[in-house]
């Protein structure tokens, strides 16, 4: 693993109007690392990752302050276009959300088309590559023009991953990507993540502690908008440094 930080968050605060949801978080992720974000519902973990591609500010009244550096470029710099950031920082959501009116193929290349790529041969090549990377190619190669929504839940989620990969992001954000999936589809996505990390730096929000333990290199524990503990996953799950982390991961909360 290259230890150079590809993602650096410095004193990030996120607000919904007057409510502060993320309170001064700083952390960094090395190139090709998988970072898991854990914490109880409402602790600010989803808001946090939505700040990493400037999606948070799209909600009415929502804004963020602080710095998020991706490959040394501060995405909150005034000169930076949020749309270009979202190309660099892909996102996969809890519920698979393929574009309902588009075919499998068109779902994968949607981002490329928006970016102005028109050549069919290029689109085909990238679609195949992305579907291969998302471990979906063999299952869909004969029905690329079927609707994306005709696939199973697990396949739809991998289609969304393929769509995110097609624009060659540097960072991939995953917000509880397997919480709506059965154990087999979950295992496939986890397996896929260990492959994907060779190409992208992954930040995943998960409620599944075992999942965080299985797939991540480092774990951040959030509570009430604050980053309580951030460290190597093996350390956090065997000997956490903070009492609050200990209580949360052993289920002694409340």
């Amino acid at each position, binding site marked *: 693993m290259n230890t150079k930080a590809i993602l650096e968050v410095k004193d990030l605060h996120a607000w919904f109007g007057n409510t502060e949801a993320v309170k001064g978080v700083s952390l960094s992720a090395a190139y090709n690392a998988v970072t898991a974000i854990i914490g109880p519902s409402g602790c600010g973990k989803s808001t946090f990752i939505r700040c990493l591609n400037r999606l948070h500010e799209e909600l009415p009244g929502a804004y963020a302050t602080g710095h998020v550096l991706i490959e040394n470029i501060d995405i909150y710099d005034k000169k930076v276009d949020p749309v270009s950031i979202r190309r660099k920082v892909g996102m996969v959501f809890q519920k698979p959300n393929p574009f309902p009116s588009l075919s499998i193929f068109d779902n994968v290349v949607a981002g490329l088309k928006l970016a102005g790529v028109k050549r069919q041969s290029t689109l085909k090549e990238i679609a195949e590559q992305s579907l291969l990377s998302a471990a979906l190619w063999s299952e869909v190669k004969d029905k690329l023009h079927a609707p994306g929504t005709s696939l199973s839940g697990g396949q739809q989620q991998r289609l969304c991953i393929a769509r995110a990969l097609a624009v060659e992001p540097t960072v991939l954000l995953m917000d509880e990507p397997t919480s709506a999936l059965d154990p087999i589809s979950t295992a496939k996505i986890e397996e896929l993540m260990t492959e994907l990390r060779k190409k992208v730096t992954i930040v995943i929000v998960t409620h599944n*502690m*075992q999942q965080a*333990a299985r797939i991540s290199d480092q774990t951040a524990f959030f509570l009430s908008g604050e980053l309580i503990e951030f460290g190597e996953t093996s350390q956090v*799950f*065997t*000997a*956490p440094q903070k009492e609050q*982390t*200990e*209580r949360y*991961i*052993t*289920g*002694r909360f*409340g």
Partner: protein
Amino acid sequence: MMERHFDASLRELKEQLVTMAGLVEKAIEEATQGLKTTKSERFQNVYELERKINQCHISVDSACLKLLALQQPLATDLRLIFAIIKINTDLERMGDQAVNIARNAQEYIKSPPLKPLIDLPIMFQEVREMVGITLDAFVKNNESLAREVLKRDDRVDALKNKIFKDVLELLKTSSEQVEQGLTLILIARNLERIGDHATNIAEDVIFALTGEDVRHSTQVATMKTALNE
């Protein structure tokens, strides 16, 4: 704070281990008394206790396996179960050593004593105390008691070395009692092993409580110094 259902299972597991440890202490005590009083029923007690210890060994392991599979413990819970699995093995081996002492003692008392036993009773006492403090540390979750055990191991080792040396000296002059001498050396060795197992348990207790791995710390420190030089 709300008690989890899991806490009750962990408590039950700990109690099971403490019961087993009680049997081990009793086995060591009976072996000691057997040598002292030469009464054969004491040795029979040791063999009977060891059978019970073996049953506990199996049931503690199976309880641990079940908790690992069904509860998927983390942090302190994980460290505690991990430590219990290891302590379980050490306790079982301590039971085996008590049996070894009983067998050796039965051999020893068949013939006239090689010499008056001076250091061996001291060693018995040291080891019993060491085992007692170790179990206290486990039951009371007391790190400083566990650390005290680690310091005491040197005393047991020194006593064993002294017994080895004294017996060897004696055998130089009375070679017809080689078997008796050897048996005494074996008993000292059995006791020393019990002390080692107690040390292992103390190390596991420290790990369970703090997450710190103190095993082989002198060795690791020496290696680090050597590397830095």
